[in-house]
């Protein structure tokens, strides 16, 4: 049905095309490995990084480590020691990208940094031509180092030394197909690094206005690692977030807020005075989300007012966040004349907090030969999925994978496993009585919005899990694809459903409420029970979940007590609210 199989061999295979993949490939290549980077889209244009909001949070010599810990790493689930270790790496990347031609905002020859909401100090380097320019410059630098690339090849399955999934052995490469000509690629690698980025909740279907771009974050890499037997963690904390209703792109808070954007109500009053009068718009993201949602519920029409931004700065912002400004204009709003109505909806991007493969400080997963970095991982419990933490985990994974490849032979190549993977890819193409992709995707999304949503509850979650399993059996596994382009979407949805099951089970497992994770049936903050990692692993055909304590060595300074304001949100009962507030 499809084209002949092209067999490729390399030392290190990198799957993905964003900033984590770029630095993983670059560091592996610099360590002497032959590197092949395979991207479902186009290296430098796929996923989140090219659409980034123009800010690279970075350390610079002279910064106090304590400021970084207090500013970004004071939560109980953050590995503060690793955060400190990451600081010089992100500065090195800043300088490397400068050399590659990324256009940073400078005063004279010095890169300057700006503040951002929730930060206690200025740490954001601005890209004066935004994410699109940043990633094309990074791409050029990485290619110049000798990294080979395969674009438009969707990897669908990892290969293993024992030919089984989950494996008792090690990962030996991967199989995928070209999304335009259907060519099959079988790639043998001594080490494989998955950098496929985060996944969305729910996964937006064409035409839906859910969440922001990129719209195609199906969690392919996370699903492949799960099937191979890798442990995943933090799934329950990554998949829910609050996004602006009326923008199809990222909110851009990191550059808009320090530029003078204001949140106002229908009377033009800056309502953040009620929530955080000291920091106002520079308050934490969590509190911003809460305040906006709360104002929306009160009928106060929360809006973003950009009229206070000086015209010179506005011209700069059009370049730093071109996609965001273009989207505002596309909405038909003159941002220089009127506030933009703003509210938040459920729609998460897991990479914001880090959710996916459990990785060590060297980017190792729990399977030999398999490494991971960036948004498809738990971020090794770094504070979040900022570009700089993605590039940093990519750096570490690239070096470790290259070192592993240098001391390893190619693993056993099992043609039978490749054949099985190819047959799985082809099924939707040869299925003549299959179901159409789009209605099934929409039904799944609508079910998730109705049953899961922002406020979680055990009975609804269980319903969603049961329904998902039923849909997987009766619909998702019966989809057909009319061409290779649609085949990529069908494969993506199939992968997504596996990550989704793991995520919903992790939601059910965590029985506390905090920040954007809200359990209606467990509304009270539980500072003891909260501090743990929830791990998901496929064992045989089933998913097994358990929890482990957060290692004590993570914390250099005592963790900050958590605010209770979020518990006012929506369905928390007054009694639970009073209890949480200690009254």
């Amino acid at each position: 049905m499809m084209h002949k199989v092209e067999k490729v061999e390399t030392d290190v295979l990198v799957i993905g095309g964003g900033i984590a993949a770029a630095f993983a490939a670059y560091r592996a290549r610099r360590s002497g490995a032959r590197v092949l980077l395979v991207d479902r889209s186009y290296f430098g244009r796929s996923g989140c990084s090219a659409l980034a909001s123009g800010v690279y949070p970075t350390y610079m010599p002279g910064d106090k480590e304590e400021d970084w810990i207090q500013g970004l790493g004071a939560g109980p689930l953050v590995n503060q020691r690793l955060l400190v270790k990451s600081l010089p790496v992100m500065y090195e990347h800043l300088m490397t990208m400068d050399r590659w031609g990324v256009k940073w905002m400078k005063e004279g020859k010095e890169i300057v940094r700006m503040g951002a909401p929730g930060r206690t100090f200025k740490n954001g380097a601005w890209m004066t031509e935004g994410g699109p320019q940043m990633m094309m410059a990074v791409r050029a630098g990485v290619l110049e180092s000798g990294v080979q690339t395969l674009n438009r090849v969707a990897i669908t399955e990892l290969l293993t030394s024992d030919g089984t999934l989950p494996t008792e052995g090690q990962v030996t490469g991967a199989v995928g197909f070209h999304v335009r000509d259907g060519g099959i690629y079988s790639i043998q690698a001594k080490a494989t690094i998955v950098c496929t980025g985060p996944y969305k909740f729910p996964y937006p279907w064409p035409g839906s206005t859910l969440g922001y771009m990129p719209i195609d974050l199906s969690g392919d890499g996370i699903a492949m690692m799960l099937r191979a037997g890798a442990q995943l963690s933090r799934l329950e904390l990554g998949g829910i977030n609050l996004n602006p209703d009326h923008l199809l792109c990222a909110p851009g808070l990191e550059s808009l807020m320090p530029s003078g954007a204001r949140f106002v109500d229908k009377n033009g009053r800056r309502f953040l005075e009620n929530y955080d009068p000291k920091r106002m718009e520079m308050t934490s993201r969590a509190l911003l989300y809460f305040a906006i949602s709360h104002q929306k519920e009160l009928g106060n029409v929360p809006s973003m007012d950009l009229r206070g931004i000086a015209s010179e700065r506005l011209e700069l912002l059009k370049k730093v966040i071109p996609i965001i400004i273009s989207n505002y204009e596309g909405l038909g709003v003159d941002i220089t004349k009127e506030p933009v109505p703003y509210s938040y909806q459920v729609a998460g991007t897991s990479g914001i907090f880090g959710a996916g493969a459990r990785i060590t400080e060297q980017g190792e997963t729990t399977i030999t030969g398999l490494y991971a970095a960036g948004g498809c991982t738990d971020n090794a419990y770094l504070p979040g999925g900022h570009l700089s933490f993605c590039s940093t985990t990519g750096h570490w994974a690239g070096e470790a994978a290259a070192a592993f490849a240098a001391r390893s032979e190619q693993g056993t190549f099992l043609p039978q496993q490749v054949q099985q993977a190819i047959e799985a890819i082809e099924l939707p193409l040869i299925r003549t009585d299959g179901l159409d992709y789009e209605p099934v995707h929409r039904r799944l999304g609508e079910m998730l919005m109705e049953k899961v949503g922002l406020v979680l509850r055990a009975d609804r979650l269980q319903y969603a899990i049961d329904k998902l399993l039923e849909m997987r059996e009766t619909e998702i596994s019966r989809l057909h694809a009319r061409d290779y382009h649609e085949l990529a979407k069908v494969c993506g949805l199939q992968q997504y459903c596996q990550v989704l099951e793991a995520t919903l089970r992790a939601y059910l497992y965590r029985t506390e409420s905090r920040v954007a994770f809200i359990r209606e049936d467990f509304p009270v903050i539980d500072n003891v029970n909260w501090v743990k990692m929830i791990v998901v692993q496929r064992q045989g055909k089933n998913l097994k979940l358990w929890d482990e304590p957060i290692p004590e060595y993570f914390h250099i300074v005592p963790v900050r007590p958590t605010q209770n304001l979020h518990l006012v949100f929506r369905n928390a009962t007054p009694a639970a609210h009073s209890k949480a507030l200690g009254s």
Partner: protein
Amino acid sequence: MPKVEINKAACTGCGVCVETCPTDVLRLDKHGMAFAAYEADCQGCFICQWDCAYEAIRVRIRGGQEIDA
């Protein structure tokens, strides 16, 4: 849903947009001109517009009808 408009007079058929579109929306037609073969998958990211050296592409986001109170 975003609309991708190609100015046929300005398009040189260089194929850069076809190469770089993140969601694989664009193709070259039989005359060698870019067109939105899978417009329903356009996410409105403006990458094609940004990458086109000839200013031949314009992406239009749905208007403001959904802005409510």
